[in-house]
């Protein structure tokens, strides 16, 4: 019997090691004493816990309710001019670093902004706005395919049976939506629960601190590792609960197998659709526009002459490239095995490999960071190891994305071409050069671009361990904000945004090829 690639197993073992070791460090090495345990029950912990859940719940509701309306509007508006642009615009927040988005949101809705909302954005209001900025477009993009999954024949039947708007919703749209909505809601909830940079910059006072930020504060300001350990364990527990709920809700849709093409926009256009889409597009575009204008008005020339800014940009770039390389390589090694298993009909085992690799996202970066702090501090200073730590954590966080993006492409490729390649005797480099790479480069390009940009804009572990030698661009930006040098911060934010967008575009083209 021919054995397939087994590269996944060492990678899985390594993944288990780098995730479980810090968790073991949290559980065992924290040297908790009875006095520390009283902290469990303190008002501080309860307030952070309550606020974490409350803001995540509100953020999810405020993102999803409009997202359903906007996705429905997009599904009903048919093929209007600018549809492709709106969909691209909705993808932009995915690559916008959180600190940058916060500045944009403040630029639009802050007290000095274009559309001031209340007296101050700092606190719950600002946190919610920033979370909706990220998650509304994300949810729209995840929900829209649900409408496209409604078979064209169902729309036609609905028309023949004389469904009105309400009956169309009840018999056609809601059943389709119901399949995917819990999964999307839990994803958004998880993202908001573990959101760090947004809460750090817009909240942080005792009344608006989440567990994630409380971990940071107890390590960085109070220098109280046992407290950080307790908070990290609590946060980990919450995330595991949400992840378990996600597993529970991922049930298979009960549909007939579809072979007919899905025709969009066969039914009548709805009149409210276009204005609604416009409003949503403005909501996403305005913060980016405000930020760009502020950056251009700031002391750009003076700032761009400073080596500190360029040094920070260089470190960010290095982190981005390294994380992208590590995550893409690890993802590919894992997927080679799982795709091969799936092709041989061992789909269950393939699924386990991919789930195992994605499950790391359950562990929030700050929890990992705390774990490494506890684990390393008896032997070395974690502050000296900040760059490998940041690269590693970001690669871990990017891995689920690589799995989701590269996995289907690789599986389809193997299913279609494996036997052909074997019968032609295509192996090794020739096969990679002429068959695998041309087919897969698009998915590789997208994966690498995504992980690179996420890592570049990340303000997480770097905030825990960053020092003046290892200041990244997002950290510099955060320090400038903290020192109330808003005009300088605007320039840094502009540069970071430009770098992220340009790099995303560039990597996707260079790796993905011209038609990516």
């Amino acid at each position, binding site marked *: 019997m021919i054995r397939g690639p087994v590269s996944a197993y060492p990678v899985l073992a390594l993944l288990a090691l780098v995730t479980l070791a810090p968790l073991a460090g949290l559980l065992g090495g924290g040297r908790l004493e009875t006095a520390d345990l009283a902290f469990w029950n303190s008002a501080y912990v309860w307030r952070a816990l309550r606020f974490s859940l409350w803001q995540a719940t509100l953020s999810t509701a405020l993102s999803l309710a409009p997202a359903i309306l906007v996705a429905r509007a997009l599904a009903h508006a048919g093929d209007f001019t600018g549809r492709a642009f709106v969909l691209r615009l909705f993808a932009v927040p995915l690559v916008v670093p959180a600190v940058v988005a916060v500045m944009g949101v403040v630029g639009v809705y802050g007290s000095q902004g274009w559309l001031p909302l209340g007296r101050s954005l700092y606190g719950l209001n600002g946190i919610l706005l920033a979370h909706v900025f990220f998650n509304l477009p994300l949810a729209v993009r995840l929900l829209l395919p649900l409408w496209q999954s409604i078979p*064209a024949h*169902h729309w036609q*039947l609905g*028309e*023949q049976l004389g469904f009105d708007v309400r*009956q169309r919703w009840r018999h056609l749209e809601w059943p389709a939506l119901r399949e995917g909505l819990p999964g999307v809601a839990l994803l958004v909830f998880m993202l908001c629960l573990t959101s760090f940079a947004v809460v750090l910059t817009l909240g942080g006072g005792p009344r608006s601190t989440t567990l994630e930020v409380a971990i940071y504060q107890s390590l960085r300001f109070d220098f109280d590792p046992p407290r950080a350990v307790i908070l990290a364990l609590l946060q980990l527990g919450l995330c595991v609960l949400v992840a378990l709920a996600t597993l529970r809700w991922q049930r298979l849709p*009960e549909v*007939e*197998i*579809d072979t007919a093409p899905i025709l969009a926009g066969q039914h009548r256009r709805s009149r409210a659709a276009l204005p609604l889409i416009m409003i949503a597009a403005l909501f996403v575009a305005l913060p980016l526009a405000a930020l760009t204008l502020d950056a251009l008005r700031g002391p750009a020339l003076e700032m761009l002459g400073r080596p500190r800014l360029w040094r920070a940009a260089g470190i960010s770039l290095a982190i981005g490239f390294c994380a992208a390389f590590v995550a893409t390589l690890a993802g590919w090694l894992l997927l080679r095995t799982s795709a091969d298993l799936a092709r041989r009909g061992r789909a269950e085992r393939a699924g386990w490999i991919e789930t195992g690799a994605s499950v790391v996202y359950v562990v929030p970066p700050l929890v990992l960071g705390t774990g490494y702090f506890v684990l390393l501090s008896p032997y070395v200073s974690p502050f000296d190891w900040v760059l490998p730590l940041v690269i590693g954590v970001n690669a871990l966080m990017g891995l689920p994305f690589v799995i989701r993006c590269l996995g289907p492409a690789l599986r389809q490729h193997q299913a279609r071409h494996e036997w052909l390649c074997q019968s032609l005797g295509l192996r090794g480099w020739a096969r990679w050069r002429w068959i695998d790479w041309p087919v897969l480069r698009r998915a590789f390009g997208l994966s690498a671009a995504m992980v690179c940009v996420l890592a570049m804009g990340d303000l997480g572990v770097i905030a825990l361990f960053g020092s003046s030698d290892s200041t990244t661009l997002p950290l510099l930006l955060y320090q400038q904000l903290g020192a109330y040098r808003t005009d300088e911060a605007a320039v840094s934010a502009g540069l970071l945004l430009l770098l992220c967008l340009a790099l995303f575009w560039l990597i996707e083209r260079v790796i993905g090829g011209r038609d990516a």
Partner: protein
Amino acid sequence: MLEIDSLAFRYATSTTPSMSFSLTVEAGELVCLIGPSGAGKSTLLHLLAGFLQPGAGRIRVDGSPIELLPVAERPITIVFQQHNLFPHLDLYANVALGIAPSLSLDSDQRDAVDAAFARVDLDGLQRRKPGEVSGGQRQRAALARALVRARPVLLLDEAFGALGPAQRRELILLVKTLVTERRMAALMVSHQPRDARIAAERTAFVLDGRIAAIDSTGALLDTPELPAVRDYLGEL
């Protein structure tokens, strides 16, 4: 009776010349449409059902023109090859939709639904979901809905194309009886000339957006005059 008079249509993106269909189907008659794929068989059905708007021409049902009526008001029921049923509703609700999209039925209407189930030999499966029954049973449920809708025209868009030969034959025979019983004018698109022999007295051959030939099924299939029909059938 269904009368189609120079019904014209052209796909916006297509370079092929405009289609134009003329055809008459008597009440109680089932006419089979065969022809190469892309010839316009399904397009004709979708024009009749109102999913597509004709450029010109007339459609009359029992004498009155219907080409300007909205889809829901046309005296027509169409059955597709798949996706005739909504997967989240049980078979009973799927059939009941044919009477009231609100699904609130009075007792006479409920009796009508049950009678339709009995007529298509699905009695007892009312509470099953479409995913829990066979492909043939799903198509029977779609036919039951056509019965409760009681429209004078029935269109079958390769309705049995996904079924095996034995089941297909069974369902075609059922349709044939229902069409005679309810005096419907029926058009059936099929890829299998065999289906036409079972189903229809008359068969039409569709080519390049036109009814290129129409004759008794036996004559059209056994002694085709048109070279295109011979090419399509191949083995002759």
